[in-house]
């Protein structure tokens, strides 16, 4: 294979992996704090992207043209809006179900996902159509043989890495992170330690949802197109990635995200059968993988004590 083409595949895979990883990290966070699957996460990605787009459109019509400024405002608005949405979800849908069977949260967030998705479709102007997302990052590129390295992609990769590193730091090095992990394990005892349980849950959901908005914007900037269904698939894959990585481990989620992207890329280009089989291939590998490592790549350190 041409080296340039190979490099191109790797670059594609990295971008894809980064987006999966960002979504997966969100899942990990929610598992982490409440041990729940929040299936609406993918749709929050969508809503985040649409929030950013709406901001863009209104800024544009207000006559602002500077790309960096536009981008800054878009990111801020989308992140804040999704953080708020996340808190609302936590407050009114997740917390009330705390004592119910864990799977109920899954169902309720699943339904919420539908509500979000359908709302975008029905209430965003022309929401059922794919929307062009502005390319706001410098798009200069260099061609090395078949390889086309774009500056915007490099910037996005770097930003993604930065966000993940920041989150990792937050979780493992700060008091807030410690509180999040404590709340995840034992709500009552955490409260006995003086932790404001509700606040921690809300903050976690805010962070996770802001992360989703970030992923949504990145998706938009990368593909220059967003649509109301984009989060659905992203959500499922993010979930898969979080699990393959090993629950509760941020590194695991990242590894899982990149692994999944790699599997898809390999399935599409390196295998003898048609590229449409790439998902069949990826999911088959995942099933076999789960048989081999039933608790994911990065295994939880604890085995239950008897």
């Amino acid at each position, binding site marked *: 294979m041409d080296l340039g083409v190979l490099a191109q595949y790797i670059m594609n895979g990295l971008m894809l992996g980064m987006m999966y990883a960002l979504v997966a990290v969100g899942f990990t966070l929610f598992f982490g704090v409440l041990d729940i699957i929040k299936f609406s996460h993918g749709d929050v990605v969508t809503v985040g992207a649409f929030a950013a787009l709406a901001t863009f459109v209104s800024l544009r019509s207000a006559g602002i043209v500077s790309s960096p400024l536009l981008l800054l405002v878009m990111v801020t608005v989308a992140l804040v809006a999704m953080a708020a949405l996340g808190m609302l979800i936590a407050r009114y849908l997740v917390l009330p179900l705390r004592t119910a069977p864990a799977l109920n949260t899954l169902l309720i967030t699943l339904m919420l996902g539908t509500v979000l998705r359908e709302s975008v479709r029905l209430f965003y102007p022309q929401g059922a159509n794919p929307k062009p997302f502005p390319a706001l990052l410098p798009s200069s590129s260099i061609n090395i043989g078949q390889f086309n390295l774009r500056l915007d992609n490099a910037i996005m990769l770097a930003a993604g890495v930065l966000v993940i590193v920041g989150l990792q730091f937050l979780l493992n090095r700060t008091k807030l992170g410690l509180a999040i992990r404590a709340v995840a394990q034992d709500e009552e005892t955490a409260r006995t330690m003086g932790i404001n349980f509700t606040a921690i849950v809300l903050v976690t959901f805010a962070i996770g949802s802001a992360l989703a908005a970030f992923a949504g914007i990145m998706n938009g900037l990368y593909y220059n197109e967003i649509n109301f269904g984009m989060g659905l698939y992203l959500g499922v894959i993010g979930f898969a990635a979080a699990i393959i990585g090993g629950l509760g481990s941020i590194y695991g989620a990242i590894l899982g995200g990149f692994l999944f992207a790699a599997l898809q890329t390999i399935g599409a280009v390196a295998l003898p059968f048609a590229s449409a089989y790439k998902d069949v291939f990826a999911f088959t590998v995942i*099933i076999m993988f789960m048989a081999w490592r039933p608790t994911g790549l990065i295994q939880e350190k604890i085995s239950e004590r008897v």
Partner: protein
Amino acid sequence: MAQAGQTSRASLLPGIAALVLATGYLIALLAVEKQPLIIGLLAFGIAAVLAANWFGWLDPVSRSFADREDRLGCFAILAAFVVAVFFREDHFVLLLFVTVLLYVVATLGLNIQFGYAGVLNFAGASFFGIGAYTSAVLNTYTAIPHLLVLLIGGLLAALIGSLLLLPVLRTRGHYAALVTIAFALLLKTFLEVNDVLGGPQGMQVKPMNLFGWSFNDNIHIGSVELSFYFSYFVVSMVLLVGAFILVRRLERSWIGLNLDALRLDETAASCFGLDIARWKITAFLIGNFLIGIAGALFGMVGSFVAPNNYTFADSLILVSILLLGGIGNPWGLVVATFIVVVVPEKLQTIQEYRFLLYSVLVIAVLLFRPEGLLPRPVRSYFPGWRP
């Protein structure tokens, strides 16, 4: 509940009253067409249940069902027939009704897996699909009697499901969820990209034919004409009753106890001699078998199979039914299936807003009853049995 000194069984009356009311309500709901009426009826239903709960009228009903399940089960079958006969000419209502019955059978299978053994299965629709595709292929290319086809559909679902046994046995919780989710996505994509089974186009399924009686013809009894779906209704009902009894007996036996024990605490269970793998496999296979049979029959009812019918989203609907009904309670499944299948259908006239409304409705129900509509009661091995 066994109370000292109490020897008499709870009265049948509240149970029968509830059944009669439910039947009447169902007929009304299925019969009305006008949107305001439908919404009014739905609102009325919710209000009525809330009110009954408020006045404490639901307790005697559930006691009556707990104690007299055998008898009330017969009445429930009767009620189903009353509804079916009422709509004997109405193809669509009967189709809807048959869909409900078969979905109940499938969720009963899921219930064994998840409700009892704790094995998550997010690929319910896939196994349902395997059953349906079985009847599509066998009815088209072979002359195998159709009852046997149903059986083969179930067996095939169990067999293909057993490919997942190793990862399912080794994983737990969310990890196990991923295995079946991956399978659901895989199977759908596979059916879609592979042309052998019709690709995304799907396949036609020949209607059921029992002992020379083709199910696609309307039935004439004297001057009364019955929709051909009535035959499917009868067969589905037989299947459902069989599945229901199977699940009930399973629950009310040492095997049900084993499944509960391993779901709740695997370590403790294995310290008391339980073969975890054996019972998980048993539950997984029986569950898939039921789902497969239901799917095979559904394939014939719908007369058409396509990969799009059996997506991950459809599997989630099956799981939703389980959660909505109250995990582990077969009666809850019946109620929940009616809601999940019939309500969106009845909301057709609000067209593009119906998914939105439906989702909001489910969220409301869950917030109101986090444990599901009818939470599972403590096991009684024989209804009405007193020490």
